[in-house]
């Protein structure tokens, strides 16, 4: 598969206000994100996950090293708008991302700013709202919606820009169980339609659904691999203040109780299949 994002020896430092010391938030990180893939980034608070995300669409640019999106280097200022058309971002708190008092106006905000033709905007907004299953709410006021619904509106806003990639920075952290599963199913649907997804999350069961997981700690990339490989390293993850998904946790506990559970169990479905075969 083709690489969509190439991160090469990325270093990002920021300067602390008071004493002018520089802090290295990302320390020599390299990896690639393939076109159409689903990559999850996990790591404890302060591990550099969000800084990494902001480096991908040029909200931040590297101190050294390189981030190349679809052949465009983020350090070259002339590329910024092209990059942001290709990579949209969705943040943790939907209330901070919604700008309009009517759902469909909010979704139209992005394409309007890209100078898209009004007829085309109408089409994109409708399609995006159908995609996140919020079309029936198009005339409503966002503040009357639930957290999960608001987050789906924020996602529709990103989708209406027709980006090739969406970076989600802990999009489910503030949601209840239903909102969380709604948002995750929308993310998976977008990915199946070909959108490249980068998901930053604290929920290990969400990360387990990705093609690849990147584990960050103190600005360093600690582990990179398929979920089955990554979650095999339970001890290493625990040492990084992380955890394993529920089914993996149960598999470990059953093995401690001398029950033979095969490797590669990641989801509750896998576990039920394995135990009730």
């Amino acid at each position: 598969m083709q690489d969509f994002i190439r991160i090469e020896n990325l270093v990002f430092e920021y300067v602390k206000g008071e004493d002018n010391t520089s802090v290295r938030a990302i320390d020599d990180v390299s990896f690639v994100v393939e076109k159409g893939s689903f990559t999850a980034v996990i790591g404890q608070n302060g591990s550099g996950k969000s800084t990494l995300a902001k480096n991908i669409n040029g909200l931040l640019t590297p101190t050294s090293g390189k981030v190349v999106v679809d052949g465009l280097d983020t350090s070259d200022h002339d590329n910024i708008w092209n990059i942001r058309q290709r990579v949209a971002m969705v943040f943790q708190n939907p209330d901070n991302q919604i700008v309009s008092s009517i759902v469909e106006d909010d979704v139209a905000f992005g394409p309007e700013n890209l100078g898209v033709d009004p007829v085309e905007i109408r089409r994109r907004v409708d399609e995006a709202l159908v995609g996140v299953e919020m079309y029936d709410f198009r005339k409503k006021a966002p503040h009357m919606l639930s957290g999960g619904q608001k987050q789906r509106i924020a996602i529709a806003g990103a989708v209406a820009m027709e980006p090739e990639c969406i970076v989600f920075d802990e999009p489910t952290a503030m949601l209840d169980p239903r909102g969380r599963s709604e948002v995750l199913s929308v993310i998976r649907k977008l990915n199946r339609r070909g959108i490249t997804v980068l998901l930053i999350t604290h929920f290990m069961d969400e990360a387990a659904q990705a093609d690849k997981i990147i584990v960050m700690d103190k600005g360093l990339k600690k582990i990179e691999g398929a979920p089955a490989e990554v979650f095999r390293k339970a001890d290493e993850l625990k040492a990084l203040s992380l955890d394993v998904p529920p089914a993996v946790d149960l598999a470990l506990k059953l093995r401690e109780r001398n029950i033979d559970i095969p490797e590669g169990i990641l989801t509750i479905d896998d576990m039920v299949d394995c135990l009730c075969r």
Partner: protein
Amino acid sequence: MSIEVKGLTHIYSEGLPHESVALEDVNFKAEDGQLVGIIGHTGSGKSTLVQHLNGLLKPKTGSIIIGDTDITADGVIMRDIRRKIGLVFQYPEYQLFEETVAKDVAFGPNNLGLSQEETDERVKEAIELVGLDYDKVKNVSPFDLSGGQKRRVAIAGVIAMKPEILILDEPTAGLNPRAHADILNMVKNIHETERNIIFLVSHNMNDIARMSDKVIVMDCGKVAMEGPPAEVFLRENELRNMGLALPDSMEITMRLKRAGMDINSVCLTMDEAADEIAKVLKK
């Protein structure tokens, strides 16, 4: 200390076209030493309820009796109520403002008009109770701490008021797994030390199952269920219809049961689930 909520009803924007009933005839009781979990999906009335408990909102009808004071009665001095009831909002770390951790935690007790010695003692106690090293952090700016530590400082500020009832609204939201576990241990520790009443509002069913003596399930402004977690989480279909989920351990055991395994599905932690599964498989 005890708290009793009787016939509590609250209506937002009453008389206006968009009026909505946020709470309708809510009744429950909690007593000393109980940890009460409150669950319900977004918009179910949890936050409105919690804001009534420390008098931030006044009910349309009904009463809240704390000890032997009805806090909804006319002429009650709210300052006295808020001394007894500590409310920790979601993302409380955004409320930190002082130059040092010790000053931030001291803000509440200072406003109670306590002596300097008493305040200092409470601050030290509270900081230690939330699991931070007093001597290490007291002179540090709260803004230089990690997310989980900041949150603990914010909670210490409420604990230092020595509330008899402590309400924690989503205390683990947005934390990584280790910080999450640390906060829960902290809540347990506070509960065991202070023997106070704790209300824990959470979307995390694992935490609710493990921590609560009693669970109150809110739905459409009403108490839909009330009981020990082992009873509440058995009502799977009702919970799902309310947009709620089961703890992961029971998510698995219920599925196994449906797939034909003869298993006791009431397992509030993953260890209990592993024990039960092992028991069945070794038969």
